[in-house]
């Protein structure tokens, strides 16, 4: 089994599996945060419910952190080997029917920026200013207030929009690629899978984008 994990094929399974965890996470994270568009109390109560469930939070955070570390380190090791395998780039890049998508060729660039985003995002929110509010008699963190504070600053909004668009490309390729890596791809699925991956990416990123844009343009 060690040979499997070291092989190029085995590491594709690792990339796919860890990517799959984060594909699920971004969808759930987006869906939950949509509450900000409807009610600040509901949004705060939802956040409070998550952090109150300590065992679940611990498991979720551990799984997310570990899968992220494995995803990033495996990507780095594969990228180093892949660059070594291609001795030199061509003088001319392909065009037309033999060209490939920008998203598929630049997963490393997108991933690197998304990683920076995740770190800064945690500093901004999880470890950011701690305001308090009371919802239904329970004292809890007022994350909505922090969110309104952050997303009224144009610089933050632009940074979020850029990173979310990169996430959209990353997902559009990753969601599609995971089926091939796992060996689920069949001839009749090929066209539909690409569409499915784009729809998934657009739902996740569209939902996420609506949150800072709502705060910036409508809420204030």
């Amino acid at each position, binding site marked *: 089994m060690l040979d499997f994990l070291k*092989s190029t*094929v085995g590491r594709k399974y690792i990339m796919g599996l860890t990517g799959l965890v984060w594909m699920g996470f971004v969808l759930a994270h987006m869906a939950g945060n949509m509450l900000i568009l409807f009610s600040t109390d509901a949004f705060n109560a939802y956040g409070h419910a998550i952090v109150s469930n300590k065992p679940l939070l611990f498991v979720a955070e551990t799984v997310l952190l570990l899968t992220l570390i494995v995803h990033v380190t495996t990507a780095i090791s594969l990228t180093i080997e892949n660059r070594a395998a291609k001795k030199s780039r*061509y*003088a001319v890049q392909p065009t037309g029917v*033999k060209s490939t*998508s920008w998203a598929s060729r630049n997963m490393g660039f997108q991933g690197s920026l998304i990683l920076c985003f995740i770190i800064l995002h945690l500093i901004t929110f999880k470890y950011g200013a701690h305001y308090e509010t009371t919802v239904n008699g329970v004292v809890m963190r007022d994350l909505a207030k922090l969110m309104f504070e952050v997303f009224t600053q144009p610089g933050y909004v632009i940074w979020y929009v850029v990173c979310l668009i990169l996430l959209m490309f990353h997902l559009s390729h990753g969601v599609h690629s995971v089926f091939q890596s796992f060996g689920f791809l069949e001839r009749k699925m*090929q066209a539909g899978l690409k569409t499915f991956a784009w729809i998934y990416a657009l739902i996740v990123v569209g939902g996420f984008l609506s949150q800072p844009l709502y705060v910036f343009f409508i809420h204030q």
Partner: protein
Amino acid sequence: MDNKKPINLTLKVWRQQNTNSDGKFVEYDAKTVSPDASFLEMLDAVNEEIIKKGDEPISFDHDCREGICGSCGFMINGNAHGPQKGTTICQLHMRNFKDGEKLVLEPWSAKAFPIMKDLMVDRTAFDRIISSGGFISTNTGSAAEANSTPIPKPDADEAFLSAACIGCGACVASCKNASAALFTSAKISHLAHLPQGAVEKDKRALDMVAQMDAEGFGACTSTGACSAACPKEISLINIAKMNREYLRASITKKQEMAGGGEG
């Protein structure tokens, strides 16, 4: 007829004396090229001119010139086998190019495919992948009666489509990671679909993937460049098939045991 008018082209060709020497681009004019000529016939004519001048002609691989042997292939403007889909360079015709076009010709780029001279690369890494498991070990004798081994039509179709791979190396050349996943998977998939090949499919998947990695090819990142460049349009589903064959074989690997008989 307008489209029969000869065209003039400028070629920027990679010239390299041998594996260890440095290479460089050299420009040549291809004059009054017939649109009916194949790309290699055009290069033959350019080489005639080079020879007349007393210089060394451009080296390139070729054999059958019918698109079935897998010998030819290099990059034309960054496209493996040129701009037309499902075509080898020998079957690419000059009607695909416009008068006055400048074409950049480069050899396949991959660490596992060292340049031998000009546009020729050493593709013996592919031979070693085949030697590691791309065969069946039974002595089949003369051809058996076709209907004595029933194979479902969809399986036979998939096997035939995978078997169409001619091992030209365009998949590796077009891949930004120089991955040999499409080539290796076509061989694994071709034999795994057939009862004659299925017996050894686990060992084959393990050995061929190990050899592919050992040769220094990169990993697949599913860009699809390989399948788009493939003159035989080998599908990416072969890579999916290889991955699941390899996973299953890794989990269920059996060992030879003492007392099992001489076999």
